[in-house]
């Protein structure tokens, strides 16, 4: 049962990732990316990480995808000439990506992780427990990340703002 859900979510994530790369239309590509993010959120639910699943949907499925779609709409890409993709590029990409995957799989095969899963407490990955960890041990990185967000916001506004000459 759970194994079936895992296989379904994995196949969905891999398929939509491949379609993200190979879809010709940019908007289709973004929509496939959303599908992939939802599949990964389902994986988080399976892994008992409900907080991560919700944050993944809100941040990636909501904010970042709206940002992408807005950028595509603002750029008005249909008027510009279509970017042609060469076949030799495809061969180079698939060969190098496949070699990378081969190396990874060989590395896994060499030392297979036969772990016995640790016993999880019932509230593992819940918002309450993660909030306690986040605001006790990781409070300094949390505050620094808020500064990072502020600087990213200001930086992007300054970049996009029209220059007055």
């Amino acid at each position, binding site marked *: 049962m759970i194994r079936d859900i895992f296989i379904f979510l994995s196949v969905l994530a891999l398929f939509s990732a491949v379609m993200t790369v190979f879809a010709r239309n940019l908007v289709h590509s973004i929509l496939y990316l959303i599908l992939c993010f939802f599949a990964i959120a389902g994986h988080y639910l399976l*892994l*008992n990480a409900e*907080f991560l699943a919700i944050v993944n949907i809100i941040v*990636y499925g909501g904010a*970042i995808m709206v940002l992408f779609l807005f950028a595509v709409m603002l750029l008005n890409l249909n008027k510009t000439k279509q970017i042609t993709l060469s076949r030799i590029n495809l061969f180079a990409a698939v060969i190098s990506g496949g070699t990378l995957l081969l190396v990874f799989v060989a590395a896994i095969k060499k030392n297979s992780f036969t772990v016995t*899963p640790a016993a999880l407490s019932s509230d593992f990955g819940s918002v309450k427990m993660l909030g306690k960890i986040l605001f006790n041990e990781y409070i300094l990185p949390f505050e620094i*990340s808020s500064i990072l967000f502020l600087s*990213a916001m200001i*930086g992007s506004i300054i*970049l996009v703002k029209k220059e007055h000459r």
Partner: protein
Amino acid sequence: MINYQSTLQAVPLNWYILVSLTLFCIGTVGIIYRRNSIVIIMCIELMINSVNLLLAAFSAYNGNADGQIFVFFIMVVAAAEVTVGLALIVVMYRNINSTDISLFNNLKW
């Protein structure tokens, strides 16, 4: 509700590693293959998400919630990165009227 312990029993850790590594390699292929810079940023997001999935899997199998905090921070950094990256693409589009990455070569030599 699903009994979460049963996920860890039913699915070996190697499967999660394999899925996220395959996602990572698909992202690599996309970065090398595509020339539209928006798609390249999307492929970078794909790779970041595959690493997030791997961290969450290790965290769950280890029974240690610190990995999930790391995933949270990676998401924060990824959101900031996408914001600035898309702003840069918009600025470059204003200059050369294209998002083709091979035309962004003013600083190349």
